């Protein structure tokens, strides 16, 4: 996978993950172009399209579009399920996820993605294992928070 973009129905970018080196300018250009292309498509259309020399796989969940760019020999359907598994992970973690969760906890969305996909390839497809890794981190955070709050009330 070359990159993954999450954007809203209004075209606002909510998450971007690039697995190939590109300049900021190029990234913005790609984003603009793709958001426009995908938003212009009708609901019943197929989830795949050719774009430049890449294949775009996208799916809409409520107000959010998840859009992946894969290479010629990559598998479209399994990419569609990568998107779905990521949505499931977010959903499980946030408890019925909505766009706002991703806006306010964008860093968490990135952390979850990093546990699931690394370098554009699936690293761990078991939902349990990914969430275990994230929750371990949260445990660490909570113990730190307790420590911090104690300090504040002193």
């Amino acid at each position, binding site marked *: 996978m070359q990159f993954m973009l999450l954007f809203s129905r209004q075209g606002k970018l909510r998450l971007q993950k690039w697995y190939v*080196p590109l300049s900021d300018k190029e990234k913005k250009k790609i984003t603009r172009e793709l958001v426009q292309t995908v938003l212009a498509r009708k609901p019943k259309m197929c*989830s795949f399209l050719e774009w430049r020399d890449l294949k775009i796989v996208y799916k809409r969940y409520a107000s959010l579009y998840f859009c992946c760019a894969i290479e010629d020999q990559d*598998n*479209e359907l399994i990419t569609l399920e990568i998107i779905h598994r990521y949505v499931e992970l977010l959903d499980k973690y946030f408890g019925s996820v909505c766009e706002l969760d991703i806006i306010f906890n964008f860093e968490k969305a990135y952390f979850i993605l990093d546990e699931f996909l*690394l370098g554009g390839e*699936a690293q*761990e*497809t078991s939902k349990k294992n990914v969430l275990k890794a994230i929750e371990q981190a949260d445990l*660490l955070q909570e113990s730190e928070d307790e420590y911090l709050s104690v300090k504040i009330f002193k």
Partner: protein
Amino acid sequence: MPAVSKGDGMRGLAVFISDIRNCKSKEAEIKRINKELANIRSKFKGDKALDGYSKKKYVCKLLFIFLLGHDIDFGHMEAVNLLSSNKYTEKQIGYLFISVLVNSNSELIRLINNAIKNDLSSRNPTFMCLALHCIANVGSREMAEAFASEIPRILVAGDTMDSVKQSAALCLLRLYKTSPDLVLMGEWTSRVVHLLNDQHMGVVTAAISLITCLSQKNPDEFKTCVSLAVSRLSRIVSSASTDLQDYTYYFVPAPWLSCKLLRLLQCYPPPEDGAVKGRLVECLETILNKAQEPPKSKKVQHSNAKNAILFEAISLIIHYDSEPNLLVRACNQLGQFLQHRETNLRYLALESMCTLASSEFSHEAVKTHIETVINALKTERDVSVRQRAADLLYAMCDRSNAKQIVAEMLSYLETADYSIREEMVLKVAILAEKYAVDYSWYVDTILNLIRIAGDYVSEEVWYRVIQIVINRDDVQGYAAKTVFEALQAPACHENMVKVGGYILGEFGNLIAGDPRSSPLVQFNLLHSKFHLCSVPTRALLLSAYIKFINLFPETKSTIQEVLRSDSQIRNSDVELQQRAVEYLKLSSIASTDVLATVLEEMPPFPERESSILAKLKKKKGPGAVSVSELEEGKREGGELNGGSDRGADTAAMAASNASTPSPQADLLGLRSTAPVGSAAPSAGSLLVDVFSEAGPATPSAAVNDDGFLRFVCKNNGVLFENQLLQIGIKSEYRQNLGRMYLFYGNKTSVQFASFTTTVSCPGDLQSHILYMQEHFVEPLVEGGAQVQQVLNIECLTDFCDAPLLNIKFRYGGALQNLTLKLPVTINKFFQPTEMASHDFFQRWKQLSQPQQEAQKIFKANHSMDTEVLKAKLLGLGTALLDNVDPNPENYVCAGVIQTKNQQVGCLLRLEPNAQAQVLSHTHTHTHTHTHTNLYSCL
């Protein structure tokens, strides 16, 4: 403000995000952001040391602002500080910031690498994973340099935790993709292969991506993975849906891993070991069988996962192309999908069938679906699906169904989406030519194309119909008649006028017997379109008119009248005016005999690859048109034009092509011959001679550096030669573009098998500096044969290293492998600049700041013969300026290096002295390292 469910550590961040969301306008948002930036800046600059928590919060805010699309130019240092925090969440935010906002500041990179190094050696698996994620996310060359040798150790160490292994595998993959030269194969590779046997499915899932990528480049080193992959796949395929616990996805066991395994197997030919092969075939059959079983769930995730595996299995079956039974089954399965209610499946079935159509075993089976595909072309509501249907029709076309398919595609063109018309036109044109049994059908088809989609008919298409009509005398009369009729339409496309003008000018006599198309009627018809046409078409029409004067003396006075009119002879366009004047003069002073000789019918065009096919290839990118298709195209093309043999093409290539019959012949064909030989600047060919005398007489066997250096100042010659193989080069450069023809000659009488060549760019050459496009080479090179390959080169910015050409082949069973430096050096993109003495010195002075200037003293290796030296300097690509330097002993040159991004002017002075030492002195615009790169050439 909505409840923040998690990540409750940073209230300030949530408030800020809320504020931004409440902004009513873009301006308000920018104002709020600027306020926040000022606040953060002052906090970072303040005297009070910030605690880790605040630092984390501010860094996170900066990240948020950046992700909104604003530029962030500070905060990197604070983020780097967070990396060495021993609090997990601070470290985590630090790493996230660094991964998203990569900075090339070298001091920062040193600090980041240090922090990563500490975490990697911390033995704390969570910290190690964070560090590995960061390397994988950034994947820069600097990181590869620092960690490429460390990560394989972590990956295969016995005591590494599973989660760390997973991250390490994909981290290494990323580094290998960016800097393959830094990831050295070694003892670890065999242990990586054995990760396929790991009991942790996650480890296998991650490792297999790495193994797939590595085995594409080093197939022999990794070939043991085939049997391991087959047994792993077999275990998954035969497992019950609950066996794999959390790795089962909607009742499908390990779909991601299955797809990756099938993908890995596509890097290799079918297994040679009978048992392994049998097991694999069994797996593939099971997968095909499962597709027929009733679904275990109604959820689309279930069918997607199942079908993802099915499509990957079909790809493998197509890749092997050796099991007729499986191929036909695959085709039948896809046939069912063609009418599936899921658009996604219809799309993929059309796409996958395209490749099945090129296999001899399944071509016929694919053809049985023609009606369904035509129907898809007509009724699918999604243009991307229709596009696939058109592609498939193109792929399944052969002599038996060509007329039907071409007719359907033509009628689709009338309503086709604008985005795909041009490609459709090319495809129709190619099919019509390739499968024409009767050329009147071909001519009809092309004229129909122009009528229906004239705007999308590119030059290549109408050039091609003219080439064919000229080369085939049995169709000329029909073509003249048809085009004459087509021109009678009140509004006909300009391309029609072009074809009409050309064909009537050549063959109008063939229909002149009929009073309805008498010479004057023909002329008046053409001339009635004249005023509506663009300048190039008018120019073509004027040529048609003078041809008319030769064909039909009775039209002479009428046409002379036209040529003499002010609108022609005083036309403001120079080209038109010149033609009018010259044609008028020619027609009035030349005798009939002279006229007949000058205006003789065009000679047949030499055979070459169809320029339309080349254009389609270019449009789709290399690889889009399969090799076999191309080959077939060529063969058919040859047959079509009177069976000229294929070798002629290559022969014409090597010889200088002086007899190009008309400007039209110089089409955009990739194998277009003109610029290589005769048209190259004479300096180039002079240098070949100079150097074959001055350079070492016998090409050395294996020392390529020597061969490489000899090409600094010349473009053609022998790059490499040993007992088996000779590699010759011809190259041409224009501005920042270059094209290189490589000729591989098999010097033995034995066939070379598995002949492959790959061009790679060491280091960052590929991503930043040089773009190369590679054309295929056939895998078999017969004894004594020569094959050719074309590379296109583009210089983006200046560069130092040369690309590497790797050649592999089997000679008598032994694998030969050699790597050569391709002689692409920065000076190839020089444009010589002539300037007077005064100008030269003025510019020399202007460019005298320290970074613009460089000098070097070196010892001359060869004798300092004036003529040889001059030739070398010319060969460098610069203009050698005479009478500029007051000292006649010195050599002064000027040139501009053309790169895609900029032009760098260079001035050069060589001062030889008696001790055969040379002082060289350069002045350039802007770039300092240009000097270094140039000197490496000198």
